[in-house]
């Protein structure tokens, strides 16, 4: 059976570290970086890449439009 694989790209310079994407992710893919961006915010990162199914919940709730989501099927 085909498996869905997703990936999240965070515009780390735009991210304000609100963490709403982390909360919204049903697969616990996202976490906050240890590093800070130029504005001093910890930004969202994919901490658990394998779990992402590309549902885009993170992007949908992101107030700053920082998140792009990709999705593909693996046979």
């Amino acid at each position, binding site marked *: 059976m085909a498996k869905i694989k997703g990936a999240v790209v965070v515009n780390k310079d735009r991210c304000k570290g609100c963490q709403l994407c982390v909360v919204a992710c049903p697969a616990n893919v996202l976490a906050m970086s240890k590093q800070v961006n130029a504005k001093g915010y910890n930004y969202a990162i994919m901490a658990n890449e394998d779990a992402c199914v590309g549902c885009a*919940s993170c992007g949908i709730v992101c107030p700053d439009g920082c998140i*792009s989501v*990709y999705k593909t099927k693996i046979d």
Partner: protein
Amino acid sequence: MALEDIIKPENLVYKKPDIMNDNPMHYCPGCSHGVVHKLIAEVIEEMGLVEDTIGVTPVGCAVFAYNYIDIDWEEAAHGRAPALATAIKRLRPNKLVFTYQGDGDLAAIGTAETIHACNRGESIAIIFINNGIYGMTGGQMAPTTIEGMKTATCPYGRDVKLNGYPLKITNQLKDLEGTRYVTRQSVQTAAAVRKTKKAIRKAFENCMDGKGGANVVEVVSTCSSGWKLTPEKANKWMEENMFPQYPLGDLIDKDANQ
């Protein structure tokens, strides 16, 4: 499968809309405004109305909405956005005309403009952000501040004997003969965001079909800075405290009743 094999243009399923530009937004982390801005931009793009939309920004945190969505805008005096929108729509009836207003702008200083524009049945959409507080001026009491809620000008909590009752203005707007669609939504989860997007789309479509009638989309929102909570906790506080006062759902949809 490596990430770079997934991150390809043909696999893109979600990104911010094109007319939402790269200017960094001045909103605080987690602010609901950003989500609603994004939805408005998405709906305008999806309806193919980028060249045919005129937005009106308020006085309040969203005053600078015009810096983030690349459409034509007018910035109104505090509370007067529905008066501007009335004239714009009447003079340019083929355009999509919407206002974007906070609770202070719409339900305090602009109450008269809001009620009369709705009552005239202007073919406009009013996007109403209700977070129960004045964000831009530093967290003072709003007309929609709920009983007991603490703000800079009711530091011991809103006392209805002193300050009167929270104004549930959308409840009144739904009773006006001039309103066509009045709904109350939120954006704290992906599911809620999808519903709000549908509501905005419906409101905008109503503005463009020539049938007339005013459309109001209230979005019960957070102000994590003003509420002094993290964005996550603000969402939870909103669900527990704001939603009982401002229950979600369509208040009136005159097309559905026909």
